[in-house]
């Protein structure tokens, strides 16, 4: 059964991208385990505001695990201790009375801190801009059923497409590599007949943008996959490698 717990909270505070950050410690009393981690932060912020101080800044939006906005590194895990859950889907029953909960921002050169726990993930948009689409204009595509797609291919594509672009793969990776994110988009599109036409161009353009933005090299630690709230598999990375290598060999 859920009960009230009290714990120590260590939260990273940082005024701006260049400023020096540090942990601030708060004592939390009688927090009911049925509330979510973010609601716990809401309660804390309410308290901070009532003290006339500046509340903790963190990204969050849909609070139902799909928008990819929330991005807290809790007790050593991106999105906290849950498996296949975003930060907003973590409830306080995951924590124990008397525990210390440490909350940090995503840490990666590709995601500079904006303030406190809020980071800049616009690099992900730039990677998509490089080729994460099918080049088709609005207008007159043929009937949706004109191209048949085997169910298992559609399912695999959907597995990859369920990526929410939260950045936890980069946050989890000791190499700051964005390969899981990039490979998920490449896989989704390259698997489908609609995306095959520009498959080689897409793989080259997106990988090259990813490299240019300074993300690290994959060493197959599988940390990204283990922490991904949507369970995206690293077999997508293998597929991307294949696509990229064969595109380069053809050149």
């Amino acid at each position: 059964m859920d009960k009230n717990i009290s714990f120590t909270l260590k939260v990273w505070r940082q005024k701006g991208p260049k400023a020096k950050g540090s942990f601030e410690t708060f004592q939390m009393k009688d927090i009911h385990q049925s509330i979510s981690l973010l609601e716990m932060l809401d309660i804390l912020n309410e308290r901070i505001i009532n003290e006339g101080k500046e509340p903790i800044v963190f990204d969050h939006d849909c609070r139902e695990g799909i928008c990819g906005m929330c991005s807290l590194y809790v007790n050593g895990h991106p999105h906290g201790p849950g498996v296949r859950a975003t930060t907003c889907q973590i409830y306080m029953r995951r924590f124990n009375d008397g525990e210390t909960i440490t909350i940090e921002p995503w840490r990666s050169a590709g995601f500079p801190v904006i303030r406190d726990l809020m980071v800049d993930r616009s690099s992900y948009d730039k990677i998509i801009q490089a080729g994460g689409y099918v080049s088709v204009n609005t207008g007159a595509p043929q009937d949706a059923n004109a191209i048949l797609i085997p169910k298992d291919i559609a399912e695999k594509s959907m597995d990859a497409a369920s990526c929410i672009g939260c950045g936890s793969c980069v946050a989890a990776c000791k190499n700051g590599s964005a390969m899981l994110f990039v490979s998920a988009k490449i896989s989704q599109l390259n698997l489908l007949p609609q995306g095959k036409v520009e498959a080689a161009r897409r793989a080259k353009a997106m990988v090259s943008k990813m490299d240019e933005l300074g993300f690290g090299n994959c060493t197959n630690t599988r940390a990204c996959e283990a922490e991904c709230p949507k369970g995206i598999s690293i077999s997508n990375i293998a597929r991307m490698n294949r696509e990229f290598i064969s595109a380069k060999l053809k050149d």
Partner: protein
Amino acid sequence: MTKLDSKIPAGPLAEKWNNYKNHQKLVNPANKRRLDVIIVGTGLAGASAAASLGEMGFRVKNFCIQDSPRRAHSIAAQGGINAAKNYTNDGDSVFRLFYDTIKGGDYRARESNVYRLAEVSNAIIDQCVAQGIPFARDYGGTLANRSFGGAQVSRTFYARGQTGQQLLLGAYSALMRQVNLGTVELYTRHDMMDLILIDGRARGILSRNLVTGEIERFSAHAVVVATGGYGNAFFLSTNAMTSNGSSAIQCYKRGALFANPCFAQIHPTCIPVNGDHQSKLTLMSESLRNDGRIWVPKKLEDAKALQAGTKQPTDIPDEDRDFYLERRYPAFGNLVPRDVASRAAKERCDAGFGVNNTGLAVFLDFKYAIDRLGKDVVADRYGNLFDMYEEIKNTDPYTSPMMIFPAIHYTMGGLWVDYELMSNVPGLFVIGEANFSDHGANRLGASALMQGLADGYFVLPYTIQNYLSDQIQVPRFSTDLPEFEKAEKELKDKINKLKAVNGKRSVDSLHRELGLVMWDFVGMGRTAKSLTTAIGKLKEVKKEFWSNVRIPGDVNELNVELEKALRVADFIEIGLLMAHDALMREESCGGHFREEHQTEEGEALRHDDKFFFVGCWKYTGEESDPELIKEDLVYEETPVQTRNYKS
């Protein structure tokens, strides 16, 4: 008095859109480059419009609050998107989709708009498939369909429980492609602050850069608002935390009409409220109603025992369970439209049959589906939803029924637009949930995605040209014009005034208070008395807000509390508008239920003779009440009936 011209094209219903397209004015490709369009919002409507206009050659500036366009709340739509493809050969057609939408909306939508929506629905699916959206498929490789609340055909296309996400990512990808090609300039973490009118036309916006806190000015030949609905006026809703109605209020205060504000949809399958700290309500997909059976106890003592926690749901035998939807609506059963299902739940809970400690919940039970289909099939269909439920509520839906309760989900009302999706302010277009146009008094499931994409991909890109075609001689505007200066000064004064209040209460605590007033007095069951009370209370909340809000930190830099405060100030205005509209509309229809106006069986009672119109509200000043302007609804081809989901 403002005269509304809805610009419905001549001709039979089925030919209006073609007639319009054949005769509208176009802008030639060389001139498109010289025309700027501002689009606020990057949800389904905003992103698809920005991408499409960019592809056509217009110069687009696209704004979103979040850090990326991909986070817009369209992403959270779970169930699916309707289209009249009739792939399932069950008798669907454009007319039937149109008719279902009109009927589902309780005959309060504009016939011509809805017909056009049904007409372009098929093209949306084609477009999305071409973009690489991995819709569910059958073994033969064709697209799969499922049925959805309020329809007797299977016309819903879906991508697992993440249809909104996939459609949004499709539009987002198309948008990113245009950003790459340089036709669209993207402004993320920007919040629209005001609409700029020059000589009576919409010519620009002010926005606040949420990272630096700077007020920025942008000019264009036309402004498109695609900022979604205002359900967060209730504080607790299924909307995202930053979903807001501020751009609608800004436009309203600049002269745009706010239509049917009281039409808000309450979704029947949300997880019930838990405690005082809840920040939002989580929706459980409506698809659960396909296999789950909704019930409360038949006996009041059982309900009391459940509320006290002395009895478990599994202790109550089948014969003591009241499957009230199946009982009241034999033809549709658990699949009645959302408003009907929501009200029925409220009716049972008001009668004391609620099943949780607050008495505000009903059961959604999968025991019967598990008996019939086996646990594996149920897990396959709903496993991820069950996991989500268990994480939140700490009970296992496989062994004990889920608890659900209605929550604010979608707002059918919005800024008034004509057939071209232009508001009464020339050059101000409103698309998606932000406008009022297609859903009448209630929206059917899987129709929001359809409307957002229809507006963005296939309607606005045509109709906006009809407006822009005579703007090609108009040079780009300087943002140093006095209109910008004045608006920026007003905005800064407002921000400084908010900061200067320096009161004792956080923005959230005031927002919660607003939400409670809204839910208690402008919620699912409204009366003249509750609404009058609401207006009084809302004015008190407004006064409390402007005299006791506290915004810490510097307002000229990143300041989340300021962002929230600006939104809450506007939510209060929206709350007042909703209350006024609901008080005026002395009938029950769709999402608007006036308890004085119901049949003996407790069903909604419309008064077509008096309220066959769109209620549009005009801003008259801070202190005075809004003025009502009516757009009469003319149904040329649809027989107007009473909704009946019983037989």
